């Protein structure tokens, strides 16, 4: 069956161990996690977990049902690419001597990246965007030595007001 990649938005009660319950479920049932990010919502009782996963249609259906069955989970649904906005943050530290600095800053500028730390031998760039944009930026930096790299994983929201989940 066709392998596809989906992003699920999961709203959970902020109970202790909830993230491990969800990631444990993925591990023991053999579902892939391409990326996972979690953070509290405007309502402090609720955490939003965004999981990017891959698998065939049957697995996708099972993920939705099995995660939905966990008692701490208020809602799980797919963030469809055409109806959603995705962002990921990457922090990239590259080796850059004084002579290379200008070029790196110019590249970062094209990708709307910010320079957030400078030392005599390195630059740290912050770049946000969808995963593809970040991949492309990292690829462009391949001529330089990447010293350290941190990526957050995908966060996403549905567009407009159609898919907003209201919590009572």
């Amino acid at each position, binding site marked *: 069956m066709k392998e596809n990649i989906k992003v699920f938005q999961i709203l*959970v*009660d902020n109970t*202790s*161990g909830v993230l*491990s*319950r969800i990631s*444990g*479920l993925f591990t*023991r049932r053999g579902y892939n996690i391409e990326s996972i990010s979690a953070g509290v919502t405007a309502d402090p009782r609720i955490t939003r977990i965004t999981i990017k996963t891959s698998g065939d249609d*049957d697995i996708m*259906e*099972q993920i939705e*049902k*099995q995660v*939905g*069955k966990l*008692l*701490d*989970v*208020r809602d799980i649904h797919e963030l469809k690419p055409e109806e959603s906005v995705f962002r990921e943050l990457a922090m990239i530290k590259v080796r850059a001597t004084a002579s290379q600095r200008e070029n790196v800053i110019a590249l970062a500028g094209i990708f709307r990246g910010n320079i957030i730390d400078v030392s005599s031998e390195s630059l740290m760039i912050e770049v946000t965007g969808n995963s593809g944009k970040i991949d492309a930026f990292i690829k462009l930096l391949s001529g330089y030595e990447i010293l350290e790299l941190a990526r957050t994983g995908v966060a996403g929201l549905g567009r407009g007001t159609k898919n907003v989940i209201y919590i*009572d």
Partner: protein
Amino acid sequence: MTATDALIKCLEMEGVTHVFGYPGVAICPFYDSILNSSIKTILVRQEQNAAHEASGYARVTGKAGVAVVTSGPGATNLITGIATAFADSIPLVCITGQVNSELMGSDVFQEADISGACESFVKYSYIVRDPNEIPRIIKEAFYIATSGRKGPVLIDLPIDVQMAEIRKFSYPEEANIRTYKPTVEGHAVQIRKVLRALKNARRPIICAGGGVHLSGAKEEVRRFVEENEIPLVCTMMGLGTLPTDHPLFYGMVGNNGQVYGNRAMNDADVVLMVGARVADRSITQPDLITENKVLVHIDVDPAEIGKNAGPTIPLVGDIKNIFEHFNQKVIEADYTDWIDRLDGYKDDGMNARTRTVYGDEDDGNPDTVAPSFFIRELSRAMKKDAVYVADVGQNQMWSCANVRIREGRFLTSGGMGTMGYAVPAALGAKIGAPDKQVVAVCGDGGFQMTMMELATLKQYDVHVKIVVLHNGVLGLVRQYQHFTYKDRFSVINLDGSPDLEKLSAAYGIPYLRISDEADMLDKIDAFLATDETMLLEVMVDPNSLA
């Protein structure tokens, strides 16, 4: 009022009559408070049995069984019992003592992360940090365990929380869990679709699973089958949905089931899976039951629907509720030809059985009896509404294939296949249904895993009939090695087993032994004649296959 006083009060308000367990320092506040209560305590001889006993109790009463043990090894011993209950969706509330909450995570004496260890086989778990939350948590725990797809709930209770004072006690009227609203009511459109599919069907079959018993829907399903004359097969967990001799019952399906039951499934054009998981032991090739047929899958757990086989018509909800809807009208259809065909299959199957090498009623060995013959006669002699508890192994296979169920129940560990389940589960069942005759049937391997519960039976004067099929080997493994490893037997001899007559005497339990078909019926009658606990050892040839 201490937290455990409050906890006991909650249990009383939930209608708990018995607590199965084993104390230790970390649960002593609980066992101190329970002295002031009318709830009876049963001291098991190993914690695993506390969960099995609670499971037997839950299955005959329909209420959640309660097991209460101490921290560390007490809690970890409970794990097999919890996993067994989870696999068969049995409602349990398991309470474990825990070390002082300030010390949790520092590896102190008898500390184990039990909620972490059990995460994948409990329906939900709590670690109680605030004693004032106890009433809410207990209310939720019982609700979660007994609603939707039932299952075990774990409550880990640190000793300091148990000893804390509670300012104001009030027990909530109902559990209100925002994230948990199981679907009970079947969707009207789907119900109509199912009825239409049955009306258009020529060869319909219902496959009943354990969900029928869990939902308490036996009467509703039976009525539906009889009024519409639809044939029924079942999974191991569904045994007892119809009496074994019911004309519309076509046996158990699966690799240990009857050939005619499987033929019925394969030839059907509409299959109703009812409270069954389409699990590997029942449906070896899930693709086959969707090929050229309409598959209707009825289950309270939406995640089971489509997990192993994609249904044509999914129907989520409580089986009892759904069949009440089904029963509102009789389906206008005639399946007589189909039933004739299935009766033919059944006759063929019965004839094939009597054509086996030694026939049906003799195993060809003068010192042993044919286990299938024994099981048939035993269950025939049992009371009409008796509870038959089968252990795991060949005894279970012989039981499934030969037991005669009328109005009673058939209990076994289906999903997990936990050896040693029968004796403790029978004990729990007898406590839950004291007026019923309860018979545990085990092999000599499984029996030795939990035979320490003979002491519990004795201590609390619980009357259970215990059958040990003695072949001196781990029969089902031996059988597997016979076929798969061409008789290269490995680690299956039970040499060193105790003399069961002396063992029974040591526990003060009467003992009988059957080693010959000639006096088998008399011995069975003698075994069942009294109400008292008795051990019946039945000699079986190790070459007898299941």
